[in-house]
């Protein structure tokens, strides 16, 4: 067994290459605002620019095939890219893009050649930003119970309905969604999966007022929105994976969203908090207290287990190792351990943990945000309850047949 993500000579060269490139290519002022809701248009545009530059390098989606503008890089180099972006205070991709992270692999599995040629390069090159549209007011955990319809009319489908908890600030060029194409059809056999240009007439975007602006992605993505569709005509060729086959298509990106692909290099705030505790603030050191030290050890262990689950999943996914419940286990853990860690931080740091005041808010207010996000993060990408449902099915608890994982490739 080898946990090392250490560099071989070739990897060192690559790391150096990345580091130099990033230094030259990250526009000034690209850094995240502490609170995603504070993302300015200027910061957003810097990131789009960086995204395009990374895309031109084939580094924006380094796992995707080169044929479509990806990097097709081995795990080790992907890790290096993640790490170096992390060192620059950013993530890969450098803005929230559910299109690249989840729709692209989905199209790779389910799309026609025409779909792949049409959608993937513009995603991989960073030319478009794509939002994910899944949840509706009446369909959260029960995604298959969505009501938004897409009814065939000539060469188009006509879309009507409402999606919530969508996207980020400053718009997107595309979105992808699952909608009802057969209102009379059987559950799970009545849905289809679409790519939708966001500039079509009849689409309205309204920001939501939430406990935290962002949530998912954790990369300074801005506010979530409600999207209204009012007789929106989408060309039939934007349907991916076949009519009424949308639920199967969705299993692929749900697998991604549920953590099946793992994540690397994500302990940002926690690591910063541990460092923060080592220093004196406002005239004293938090770790003078034995209880604080004890709680900090517990917090560290919590975060380590999450890290190891992420590494395991990443390794499994990228080595095509048979997976079962691990994606949802990781997602469940991220959610519950996030909450647990937030409360441990509250214990250790006291009410300081609750303010983003310039003078008193630790880590420029990131701690305060962490406390709110721990709650907001409980539901996106399926609740903890649903993650347990998936785990149970895949483990085969109480059933002879074990549910298969969603295809990742």
């Amino acid at each position, binding site marked *: 067994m080898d946990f090392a993500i250490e560099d071989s000579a070739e990897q060192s060269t690559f790391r150096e290459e990345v580091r130099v490139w990033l230094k030259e290519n990250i526009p000034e002022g690209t850094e995240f605002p502490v609170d995603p809701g504070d993302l300015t248009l200027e910061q957003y545009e810097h990131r789009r620019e960086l995204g395009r530059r990374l895309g031109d390098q084939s580094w924006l989606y380094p796992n995707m095939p080169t044929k479509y503008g990806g990097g097709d890089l081995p795990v080790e180099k992907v890790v290096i890219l993640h790490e170096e972006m992390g060192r620059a205070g950013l993530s890969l991709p450098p803005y929230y893009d559910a299109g690249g992270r989840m729709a692209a692999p989905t199209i790779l599995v389910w799309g026609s050649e025409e779909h792949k040629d049409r959608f993937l390069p513009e995603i991989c090159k960073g030319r478009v930003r794509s939002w994910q549209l899944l*949840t509706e007011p009446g*369909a*959260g*955990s*029960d995604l298959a*119970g969505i009501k938004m319809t897409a009814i065939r009319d000539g060469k188009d489908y006509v879309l009507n309905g409402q999606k*919530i*908890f969508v996207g980020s600030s400053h718009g997107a060029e595309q979105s992808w969604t699952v909608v009802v194409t057969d209102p009379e059809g059987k559950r799970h056999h009545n849905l289809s999966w679409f790519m939708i240009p966001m500039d079509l007439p009849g689409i309205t975007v309204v920001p*939501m*007022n*939430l*406990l*935290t602006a962002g949530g998912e992605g954790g990369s300074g993505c801005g506010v979530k929105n409600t999207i209204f569709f009012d007789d929106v005509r989408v060309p039939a060729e934007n349907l991916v994976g076949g009519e009424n086959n949308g639920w199967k298509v969705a299993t692929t990106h749900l697998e991604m969203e549920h953590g099946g692909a793992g994540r690397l290099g994500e302990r940002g705030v926690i690591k910063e908090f541990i460092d923060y505790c080592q220093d004196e603030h*406002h*005239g*004293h050191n938090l770790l003078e207290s034995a*209880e604080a030290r004890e*709680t900090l050890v517990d917090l560290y262990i919590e975060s380590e287990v999450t890290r190891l689950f992420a590494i395991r999943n990443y390794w499994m996914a990228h080595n095509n190792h048979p997976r079962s419940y691990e994606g949802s286990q990781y997602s469940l853990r991220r959610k519950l351990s996030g*909450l647990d860690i937030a*409360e441990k931080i*509250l*214990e250790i740091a*006291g*009410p*300081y943990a*609750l*303010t*983003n*005041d310039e*003078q*008193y*808010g630790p880590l420029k*207010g990131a701690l*305060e945000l962490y*406390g*709110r996000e721990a*709650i*907001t993060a*409980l*539901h996106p990408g399926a*609740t*903890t*309850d649903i993650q*347990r449902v998936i785990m149970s099915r895949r483990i085969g608890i109480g059933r002879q047949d074990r549910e298969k994982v969603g295809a990742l490739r």
Partner: protein
Amino acid sequence: MDLSLTETQQLIQDSTRDFVRNDFAKEILLDLDEMPALMTSELWTKVSQLGWMGMAIPEEYGGTGNTLTDVAVLYEELGRGPVPGPLFSSGVLGALILLKTANSSQKEAWLPGIADGSRILAVAATEKHYGWSPAHIAMTARRNGEDYVLDGTKLFVHDAASATDLLVLAKSESGISLLRVDANADGIAIRVLPGFLSGVTEVTFENVRVPSSDLVGIEGAAWAGYDAALQSAIPVLCAYKVGACQALFELCVDYSKERTQFGQPIGKFQRVQDHIIHIVNYLDAARWTTNEALWKLDTGQDAASSVHMAKALSSDGYLRSCDFAHEVHAGIGVMREYGLTLHTKMSRSLYHCLGAPKFHRKRMEGALGLVQA
């Protein structure tokens, strides 16, 4: 043994519940939440006229001299809101501190105003080195002629933005002293702290002169009375959290029936049931430890370990009940207009107030005789 409410208490409960349901309806609470004072003067006048502010104050000082349990019944209903603002800080914590520390002329001068709502207290105890022990008081009250001079910063002070008077703990020559200070005195700056909390402030004192007549009680001898007042006030704050947990419980049970997914009410799913069962377990643990602590205090028994226990359980319980309520509600729960996040924020705001759970658990070691006190 009789664990039921008295008739008086039943009356307080019913009338308060009605009042909170109407005058502190969700839309009003969402508005209050955006005001620094967390209260409007109209509402303050109303609650003062209802006599809420004088319940913990003896009749001789203009109050109604109710038992702590009576007062707790009121605050349990307020917690259901959760009703924000300086009610507890002034009418319970501040009033009890004055009752335990002030001399009789001070009581006569100040308490009637508290009871009728014209005077609003906030207690400025904690500082940058945050904590609820005497060791955490670093600010000094320097004697200068007939006055004391205050310099320094009080941090995470609850409800100072709506207060007329501050009760300030400070170190004077002979020990820890308590001073009553006009909230708008020269040299005082009050700043509401932004973030995942409500009504919590920074109060800075720059060369603030306080006449010695506003030194509460005896110089250097404030801590014992102050601490005793806290012990009495804590279970009332616990009752507020009990009421809050009760509201969360009911909110979740209602939602479990209304919201359908997968073709049935979500409450049919055992996982959703278990989230709610966690809440009711937290609720009842907080409720009955609080009730016992109140009873011990009202009957003059040693209540230390009960008080610590109630505070530890109710603070933890409120925090975690919010978490479980969010599990039940998922998306809708984090939408501000739904109202759940008012509780979430309040549960965090009050988590450390009058001592966090670990602090009280630690103090129980002494109360149980596990260490030399």
